[in-house]
């Protein structure tokens, strides 16, 4: 698979003097599910925001091949517009691109169906549970059919059942749409379950210390979490986080 984007010797320091990243080299291949794992303060989120173009690197380059693809971002908070109903929220990217209303509504409704929220189009965010709000946030992200989906600890605030069911739904969306996902998490198990590759990061200064390629079965479900393969993958990531050889 070819590289979709490349970070070369990327560093980032903030005005406060904090050195968030130093010498980060990272390639993201088209179609992969890459997780960035590391302790808080290791610059995982900063990498994501650099890729999104929301902030500029202090040094080094972020380049895309051939050019920056259609990108969507999912935050840890659902960050929905509280004054707009679910359908209008899901339509956001399409509205901003100037897609005509009828088509935007149809595509947003389809995205909502795919995340299991058909029937909730007219509901307002405050009427939904945390897990459902996150589903709206994901529907908003996939409605515009992005090639690159950036997710910043999207499920960290959810309870375990909601988290696992969203993990499975996200994998299904990833397989069906063939998008590239860069997923930030601090959960070893989540990264082991979801990813085809894990980049382990460490703090002070933030950098990538190891990249681990995983070969999970294409179809995963709850029983995969009980297999030796899953334990081995989680063990490797965990060991790398602690700085020991696996």
């Amino acid at each position: 698979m070819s590289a979709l984007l490349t970070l070369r010797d990327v560093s980032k320091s903030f005005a406060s003097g904090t050195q968030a990243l130093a010498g980060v080299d990272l390639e993201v291949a088209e179609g992969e599910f890459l997780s960035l794992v590391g302790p808080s303060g290791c610059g995982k989120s900063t990498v994501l925001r650099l890729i999104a173009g929301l902030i500029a690197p202090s040094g080094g380059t972020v380049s895309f091949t051939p050019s920056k693809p259609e990108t969507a971002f999912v935050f840890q908070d659902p960050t929905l517009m509280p004054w707009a109903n679910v359908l209008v929220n899901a339509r956001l990217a399409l509205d901003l691109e100037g897609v005509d209303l009828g088509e935007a509504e149809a595509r947003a409704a389809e995205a909502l169906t795919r995340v299991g929220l058909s029937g909730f189009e007219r509901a307002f965010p405050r009427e939904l549970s945390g897990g459902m709000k996150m589903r709206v946030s994901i529907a908003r992200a996939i409605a515009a059919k992005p090639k690159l989906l950036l997710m910043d600890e999207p499920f960290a605030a959810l309870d375990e059942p909601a988290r696992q069911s969203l993990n499975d739904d996200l994998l299904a969306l990833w397989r069906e749409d063939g998008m590239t996902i860069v997923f930030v998490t601090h959960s070893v198990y989540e990264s082991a379950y979801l990813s085809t590759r894990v980049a382990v990061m460490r703090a002070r200064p933030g950098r990538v210390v190891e990249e681990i390629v995983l070969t999970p079965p294409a179809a995963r479900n709850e029983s995969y979490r009980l297999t030796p393969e899953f334990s081995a993958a989680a063990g490797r990531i965990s060991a790398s986080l602690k700085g020991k050889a696996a």
Partner: protein
Amino acid sequence: MNALLKYALPFALGIAVLVAWQVAVRAAQLPVYLLPAPSDIWAAFTSDFASLMASLWATLSVTLAAFALAVLIGVSLAILFSQSRMVENALYPYAVVLQVTPVVAIAPLILIWVGYDRIELALILIAFLVAFFPILSNTTLGLKSADHNLIDLFRLYGASRWQILRRLQLPSALPYLLGAMKIAGGLALIGAVVAEFVAGSGTATGLAWRIVEAGNRLEIARLFACLGLLAALGIAIFAALSALEYALLHKWHESALKKQA
């Protein structure tokens, strides 16, 4: 039951106070120029109904015009501030100066500049000066309070400044604006009353001037009738703005959520 009690209780209290007032005034045989009984006030109100309504309308029209101007200019300036930090830094201190200077002190100047032949306009300007600052400062705050992650998301999707303003900043500012409007509505009425007091004799025809006039003539019952009308006007403005707030926010905003018992 609870809803009934919520409205019945203050209403019953009001009736009780009126009855006690009536009985006390009659029992003590207070002269009407000191403290008129409710029945005297009602008599003054009905006998003078047409001219009091004309005065009410004069004060109401000044209040509404000043309020509309305050919303229009306050929101426009706040939008301008949100688009240009330089403009905000340059203008905001002067808006504050305008706010902290007691407007009664500026009123004579405005009356001279605008002129007594255009007294209505002068009254509107004075009331506007009293009402406009909460709109400006609250809307400015509201426009800045848009969720930063949402702003990032809008930028990621290539939104223009206009799209960010219309689809994100203005809706975020709406609860702030509506809160400010409730304050500014009351202030516009106060401003109109102050303006009439300052404008003084002859040209002014509003309720405030009628109060001054009634006071000078010791027509205390009519003074009370005017006061009652002003209070009713203030309540009506507040109720209308509260209804507007409910209509625009109840579907989505936290402030309109019913508390779970």
